């Protein structure tokens, strides 16, 4: 339990403000820069908006559980729902050079987090695990992307 907090909210978009508040405070406790806090807050909002839209198809009376873990060299967020299973291979942001509404959320999530994986062991619903490395890296998008390409 140490260095971890869990919040459960209804799948109604009005609770995104509650989620952002918790996310920002957890980021601050983990010692992130102000810019990093903003990026992570937005990413977690996007990931939960996606659960509301795609996993629950707009049903606002369901549950989303979000766990935050501050570990020595990373900040982890685990998002669980009981909705329609995502097909990870089909989750893809749009080409950013193409101007149309939508398809931006996944880019914003991947900007803030190094790892974006659905836990295959979960039987019903989804468990999305987001990991942001915090040690030995810069809080910088370019660095983050270069590192990802290198690895």
């Amino acid at each position, binding site marked *: 339990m140490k260095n971890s907090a869990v919040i459960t909210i209804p799948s*109604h*978009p*009005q609770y*995104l*403000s509650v989620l*952002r508040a918790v996310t920002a405070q957890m980021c601050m406790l983990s010692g992130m820069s102000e810019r990093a806090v*903003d990026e992570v807050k*937005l990413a977690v*909002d*996007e990931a939960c*908006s996606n659960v*509301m*839209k795609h996993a629950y198809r707009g049903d606002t009376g369901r549950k989303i559980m979000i766990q935050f873990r501050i570990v020595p060299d990373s900040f982890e967020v685990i998002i669980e729902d009981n909705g329609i299973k995502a097909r990870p291979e089909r989750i893809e942001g749009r080409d*950013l*050079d193409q*101007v*149309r*509404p*939508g398809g*931006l*959320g996944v*880019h*914003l999530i991947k*900007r803030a987090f190094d790892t974006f994986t659905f836990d295959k062991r979960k039987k019903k619903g989804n468990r999305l695990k987001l990991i942001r490395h915090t040690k030995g890296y810069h809080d910088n*998008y370019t660095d983050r992307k270069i590192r990802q390409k290198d690895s």
Partner: protein
Amino acid sequence: MTIILIEKYGKKILELSGEIDMNASPVLRKELMTLVKKGVTPLVIDFNNVSYIDSSGIATFVEGLKGMMAFGGKLKLAALPSAVKEIFSFSKLDRVFEIYGSIDDAINS
């Protein structure tokens, strides 16, 4: 989020404040598309008091812009706080939208 429509030097300005997320976007979309459908042009959006925007907010403005372009109207985004502007640049939409430093710049453009 709150929305106020004002007029300055004969130009319509939509003043937004607060957070534009998936909860606020449908309200904003309704307001914006009503103005677009009425053919209000140019329409200036005042972002000065917007503290947060997510992809649903961005998508709403893309929709508004498309609606405007369909009849040759103009949508002008003004006074974006740096955190908000940064999302537009990240999504490469700063090349598509007309973005102004201030309301006056947007009006006089």
